[in-house]
């Protein structure tokens, strides 16, 4: 009788010595103590087949064994748990590279375009999404540039036929806005524009512009200056200074050229601004009375201002990009930098 108990005990001790972790601890525990078919439980069933007088001794020896097994396992559990814990706390080399998940990013010009549109929306403007294929009327005639006007020379145009062309600026927003709504008008349009220019470091047949128009009663040139200044400061994120000087565009009168203090030298003078301290950034002015009239706005009651700016130009100034073609090469080494 005792032989089987002793054998069981030796078996347990052998298995017990091989416990190496949580899993093996659990399987040893289950092997011996499981309710259904653990070895101790099974052995206890043999009680019924023993002669009556052997039962109490057998029962007691089994209980001692069971207590022994439970206590040993309980002790071992603490050690096993501690081993597990320290394994988890084993230091790894945190200086190795992390898994290379890399987000992409938006195109620098699109980023600027979105930023500019947001600035205008926050200033109460409606963003117009206008087609790139435009009518000569909206791109030129309604902006006081009739056919054969010398001012058209400055914008060599791609034509599809006698009336349809690729827009050379977004200034047609002035006309579309006036047709779409009555004053007060605050409208802006951005997007691709096209000129018959060669593709070199400073020119591209395709680039991006933003055009703005405000029309209401009592709009003054002072309002043009103030709105422009507020906008430019936000676009360039700095305390740049702005100056207006007389300029000519057929769709505005008075017309103005707008310079900002050179962001490279803070207006001190450097090669980037040809030592002048100023960089020409955009054209602006008060909407020409003829432009208002042509779109059915009473120029004796309403006045307005407009301006237009190249977004690539802003990118070039803001980021110091030295070749406009880089924006359209899609070289990842370039795109990643934004």
């Amino acid at each position, binding site marked *: 009788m005792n032989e089987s108990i002793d054998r069981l005990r030796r078996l347990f001790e052998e298995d017990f010595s091989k416990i190496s972790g949580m899993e093996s601890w659990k399987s040893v525990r289950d092997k011996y103590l499981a309710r259904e078919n653990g070895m101790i439980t099974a052995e206890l069933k043999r009680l019924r087949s023993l002669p009556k007088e052997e039962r109490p001794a057998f029962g007691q020896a089994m209980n001692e064994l069971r207590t022994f097994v439970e206590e040993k396992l309980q002790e071992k559990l603490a050690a096993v748990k501690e081993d597990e814990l320290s394994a988890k706390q084993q230091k790894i080399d945190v200086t190795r590279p992390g898994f290379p998940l890399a987000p992409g990013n938006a195109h620098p010009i699109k980023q600027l375009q*979105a930023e500019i549109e947001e600035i*205008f929306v926050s200033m109460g403007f409606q963003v117009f999404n206008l087609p790139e*294929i435009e009518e000569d009327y909206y791109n030129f005639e309604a902006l006081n540039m009739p056919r054969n006007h010398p001012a058209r*020379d400055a914008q060599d145009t791609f*034509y599809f036929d006698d009336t349809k062309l690729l827009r050379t600026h977004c200034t047609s927003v002035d006309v579309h806005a006036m047709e779409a709504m009555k004053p007060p008008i605050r409208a802006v349009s951005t997007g691709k524009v096209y000129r018959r220019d060669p593709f070199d470091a400073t020119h591209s047949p395709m680039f991006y512009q933003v055009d703005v128009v405000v029309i209401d009663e009592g709009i*003054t*040139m002072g309002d043009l200056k103030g*709105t422009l200044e507020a906008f430019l400061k936000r676009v360039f994120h700095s305390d740049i200074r702005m100056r207006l*000087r007389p300029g000519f565009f057929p769709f505005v009168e008075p017309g103005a050229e707008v310079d900002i203090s050179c962001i490279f030298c803070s207006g001190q003078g450097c090669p980037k601004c040809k030592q002048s301290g100023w960089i020409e950034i955009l054209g602006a002015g008060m909407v020409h009375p003829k432009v208002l009239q042509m779109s059915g706005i009473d120029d004796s009651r309403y006045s307005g201002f407009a301006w237009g700016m190249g977004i690539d130009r802003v990118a070039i100034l803001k980021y110091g990009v030295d070749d406009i073609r880089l924006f359209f090469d899609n070289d*990842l080494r370039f795109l990643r930098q934004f």
Partner: protein
Amino acid sequence: MKISIEWLKEYVDIKESPEKLKEDLSMIGLLVEAIADVQGTVVLEVEVTSNRPDCLSHIGMAREIAALYDRPLRYPAIQQNLSISPDRVPYKIEIRDADLCPRYVGLVLDGIRVGASPEWMQRRLEAAGMRPLNNIVDITNYVLLEMGHPLHAFDFDVLRQGKIVVGRAKPGERMRTLDGADRVLDGEMLLINDGGGPVAIAGVMGGLNSEISLSTKRVLLESAYFQPASVRRTSKKLGLSTEASYRFERGADWENTVPAIARTCLLIEQLAGGRIAGSVQDVYPGKKTPVRISLQRKNAAALLGVDLSNAFVESTLKRLGFQLEPKGKDSWDVVCPTYRADMELEADLIEELARFYGYQNIPATLPPGKSVGSPSPVSGIEKAVRAIMTGQGYYEAVNLSFASETDHTEFPPLDGDRIGVRNPLTEDTQYMRTTLAPGLVRSAKRNFNYDQHRVRLFEIGKVYRPGPDGKPSERNTLGILGTGGFVDQNWINPRAEYTFFHMKGVLAALLRGIRIHSFEIESTNAAGWLNPADAAILKIAGETIGVLGALSPGLEEKYKMKQPVYLAELDFERLARHAFAPIQYESLPRYPLVERDLSIVVDRGLAYRAIQKGIAALGIGELTGVDLIDVYEGEKIPSGKVSLTLRLTFQDRERTLTVDRVQGFVDTVLSFLINTYGAGLRST
């Protein structure tokens, strides 16, 4: 326009330094781009805008400076008496088309000795960027640069019948111009003819036959006014632009004709021995009157947003050569100088006031805000797509909207035809692109050349095709490109290469991100530039949205890509219409889900879609998900067959799922697969 300061000083006192002049002139609208030194002479390079032809001369610039600093202007000496009686050399001027030539002033001189012009004149011409030729030509150029009026000198003895006839050309008429070129003219071009034929293209260039030569003894001077639009049209049509045409097309001063000829006459008398032989003839059929504009001070003040005094208005405009006739309180009738071709309405006068008030002196204000801003209707979907694509590791590309002939042959439009540009600049800008693919492929190639072999790009841009009315139209499109390793080489995980299923995955992620809940991918044979092996179309609710697949082997070879390139192209507008399904909250399940894996062996040719649809058709409501988690081909699997491991997910919203119920469902699925597809359970 190159302006010599030394020359300017003849007409106006200048004590300011060149730098100060540069600054001050720029601030009144005459941008001085640079101060140059031309052989010891200080020259201002002035950018004169097309509305100020009156500044295309030294006197014009001197006028502005005189107005700016409020100094007197000195006009050059001219010949006062332009008539003799009787004429030694009679001649005739006839204007046939007065609409194109309202005024023609002629003068004949004899005793001409053609030679070199004096040094001081040559130096001034060179400072202004013109080449000295001979005294007669130099004098006419000098007067052009001095007074701004283009004159022409004819060798009088070459003029047949001693007459000038100004009229339109006959269509197809030809003549040889001074530069030696043979010109073919049309019926709208204005010519200067003599008694036999054309001797000059009016306002543009003189003829070769009547030009001044060393043997010229008598000259006929022309000082005329030609209609700006006509000169411009002729100049453009012939591709011929000269100092003369440049000024005429912007609007010359018809009152400057006689003074200019008088000045030229004096210089010829002084420098070339000439004497008046035929009295001045001023043929002036189209009498032009100066522009008159009504000005009200309150309008000027209102537009600029500043207070202006009557004194300021009057003194400024007078300094600029305007005449004011008071017309009631604070208002005038303003007579504009004839040299101001840009004057038309009150706003033009207000600009004069503004530029002398100083744009920098106008205070900056903000107009009251009455409106609430709104972004463009497409910005919401574009922003979302951009965010999702960049989040997936794609970089946004922008390609030019043009395409070449080659692009069209290699990447034919998926539907519709292409649009041609009528006046392209280069071969590359002949057409508008019908697909984003060539631009993206070229971008990938460029990146390969710079050792970037893992390329993931997307582009949101327009493609262009004839619209339903046959006219050019544009559609917003999304293009995606993926090639190379799915992640960078790293020490943690093995590196997968980009495959069709990575492209499909990013599309699925995109659609999910813009709340499009179901879509279909179907194989297609109409592949175009895609590899027919995996060319597929994307459909949402039965509508074709776009295509995806690998670049065709032919194009891969042509572009020497060395690795497969995957592309997708979706019609953005159609995509947008399906996007942003309304959000409908669904309460969270309270009972745990159960997952069971099923490994089956099926024919390789069986489409996964069939299995998906078949299982769905079983109508087991508690089966909430079927995912393909493994595909195995190889030993242990009979050839022609493949092992698929499906993960089935079960969930009951009402009660806990029992093992028996789950097993029942699994058995139903398995029987279906066995009976329908002859599937076998994979033995382990």
